[in-house]
């Protein structure tokens, strides 16, 4: 419901909004942007792989991360990708968007993000965002996942799909243990109108993947309601142990 209001607005006003030019690196603010070579190496690991199951950054030859090999990852998604490593300046950037009310900053990275997504993800019928509970949405004023999805929609021309909704406010994921996270999410998502999604393949977008539990919960509900395939996509996730040289 709230999403629809947002979407309406996005269609009206957002196109020109994403066309802004940014010259300096969005992360370090020093070298040439939108993301400088330095930061690309440091946070986006162009040579590394992504865990098929949870999107985490892995060694190039590995298909799954060690967590997912131990069956701790999501099971229902066809494949998952995280763009960058959730740390340092990239983490700051994402936190700026969420906690400092600066969704506009996403415009700075629209180009490298959509290039990367085009290179890795399969073409689908539409893009969908992980919904936020209306209470929290009313407080923050925007859903960052929704803004990312709309950005990709404008850049790549894929339709934005609606129909997935969040029912009750769940406690923030970070406060919970892994097991509790899964329980916490059970039943949080619904598809009120089955007809709209039958047979479609989708990218399911979130800002950050921590355990993959949120994506898993959404994917389960989507698949139960007729969606044919769900691919997960996020701006950031963790990295396989040993992949990132320990800093400082």
């Amino acid at each position: 419901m709230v999403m629809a209001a947002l979407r309406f607005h996005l269609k009206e006003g957002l196109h020109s909004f994403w066309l802004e030019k940014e010259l300096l690196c969005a992360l370090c603010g020093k070298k040439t942007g939108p993301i400088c070579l330095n930061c690309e190496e440091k946070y986006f690991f162009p040579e590394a792989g992504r865990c098929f199951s949870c999107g985490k950054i892995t060694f190039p030859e590995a298909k799954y991360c060690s967590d997912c090999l131990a069956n701790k990852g999501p099971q229902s998604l066809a494949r998952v990708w995280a763009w960058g490593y959730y740390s340092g300046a990239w983490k700051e950037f994402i936190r700026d968007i969420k906690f400092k009310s600066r969704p506009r900053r996403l415009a700075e990275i629209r180009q490298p993000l959509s290039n990367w997504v085009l290179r890795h993800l399969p073409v689908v019928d539409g893009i969908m965002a992980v919904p936020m509970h209306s209470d929290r949405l009313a407080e923050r004023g925007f859903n960052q996942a929704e803004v990312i999805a709309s950005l990709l929609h404008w850049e790549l021309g894929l339709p934005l799909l609606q129909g997935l909704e969040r029912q009750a406010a769940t406690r923030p994921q970070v406060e919970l243990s892994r097991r509790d996270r899964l329980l916490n999410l059970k039943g949080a998502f619904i598809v009120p109108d089955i007809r709209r999604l039958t047979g479609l393949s989708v990218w399911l977008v979130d800002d950050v993947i921590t355990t993959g539990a949120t994506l898993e919960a959404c994917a389960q509900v989507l698949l139960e309601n007729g969606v044919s395939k769900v691919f997960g996509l996020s701006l950031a996730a963790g990295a396989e142990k040993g992949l990132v040289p320990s800093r400082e």
Partner: protein
Amino acid sequence: MHFFLTMIEQIGLRFSPFPEVDKFFYKKETEYLPTGLSLSLLEKIFYKNISENLDYSTGLLKMSKPELQAKLEERLKGWGDLLPAGSWHWQQAETWPGRAASEYASPPESREFDSCIRGRQLTDKELGRLAVQIGSDLQSVLRWAQVRVLKGWGEWIPGIRLEGQKWRCQRCGETELEEWPGIGGNMVTCRSCSSLGVNSSQQVLYRDKQGLERKSETVSFCLQPALTSAQEEVSSQVLEFVGQTEEKEALLWAACGAGKTEVCFPSAAWALENGKSVLFAAPRQDVITDVAPRLQRNFPEQQIQILAGMIPLKYQKGNLVLATTHQILRFYQAFDLIFLDEMDAFPYQGNRMLEWGLQQALSPEGKIVYLTATPSEEGLRKNKHAGRNLFRLPARHHRYPLPVPQWLKFTYRPQKPGLNRKMEKQLREAVARGITLIFVPQISWVGPLVQYLELKFSNWRIAGSYSSDPDRKQKIEDLRQGKYSLFVCTSILERGVTIPNVQVVVLAADHPVFEKRSLIQMAGRAGRTKEYPDGLILLVSARKTAAVTGAVNWIREQNYYAASLGLLDLL
């Protein structure tokens, strides 16, 4: 923070964050609509339609319930996506989830809250910090704030509000804001005051309307050191302005090093004794750290709130406050008397944000005294035009004239540091007299010049510094203690630093960053102490610019004026 459209029997309609607190307060039937929204969204949805029936000062609606219902339905048509019809059933305040209002009634911490919150303008995050400090929790503090709102002692306002067609940050007054697509339309975030924490149109500010606690008291005040007769004269003029006139603003123009802050102390003492609140504000932290011990020495028993820099807000009590100009954005109609020091100094001049903050922090009857060593011509003109008082203190306490700069023709090339013979001779002379400061226009000049000078004058101790130098603090301390013969820096070397027996050289005095007033400020570092009332000042450049001539004339004029008032022993 969520607000709810709340209807209170016989009272009317409000936007309340806690309908059950309203019910507890009024002891009247209270209902609310259960969809919580940000205050700005509620305003946006409802004000347009009902404003003619709304009393803005009380937030109350003069309308019957059926009338209101009809209006709401009409209004909500356009917002069906955000607020589907089903979410608009009035609910009894008792159904409110969470602890009952009675539990928050009035434990001792709420009295502590009441005295800390006065005169403040804070975000809900900042209220949370206050809660921790007084040993309470955010939920209680927010409810006590709501009680103050119901009593008419405070109000909730959106952090950024549409004023006509234009968004304006309610904390700092900024109108150039970062716009983004939010629910139900564009929203905005303010970047200007972000160093104080996030502020956006989704944010809410609690604005207290009671001002600081004002109570008459005997103020232990002892002037140390005593004022000179020149200072005393001006001091009584300021006191007269503060205590006996209807005028709102005055400008105190004093020579560099004339002791203008002390001149204001008797007026501050008078104000405190008469139950008024007083703020000393300065744009930079170093000025605050310089003034703090002087204030404490002169008001030994007074509780002084010192709010400087970006340190996390610490809530203190007392109606004598010393703060950086940034901090004043956290006050609302709190002060009866404001002394704004160094009004010409970076970053105050031309800064709309601090201008706004100052007006907001001033009580409706309050007065401002601007203190400056170098008013701009425009500033003086404006002052005159506004019919403001101008008080002048042109002489230093030691009754010697200000040292007058000499101009020296020499072209310095930063790419190829070097001095000609004439320049070298002058520099040796300066160093022979005392510690010599060399001011350069750009940070990048500092390093190469220091290197060159170290080679050339290997028996002198030489150093240089600029504002982002990590060793800056230590170097400044060493400089203060006289460990260097020669020190290279940019013009923003801390103004609070007084170095006895200092000589001043300004290199490339014709560079555009050196305006007349910055030349005067740099020259003003020489001859400040009684032991060394004189000093050598060299303005070195290829051309004699208007700024150079202007600065020299200005200083001469100050001296003539001081002499004409009989404030100088020698001229």
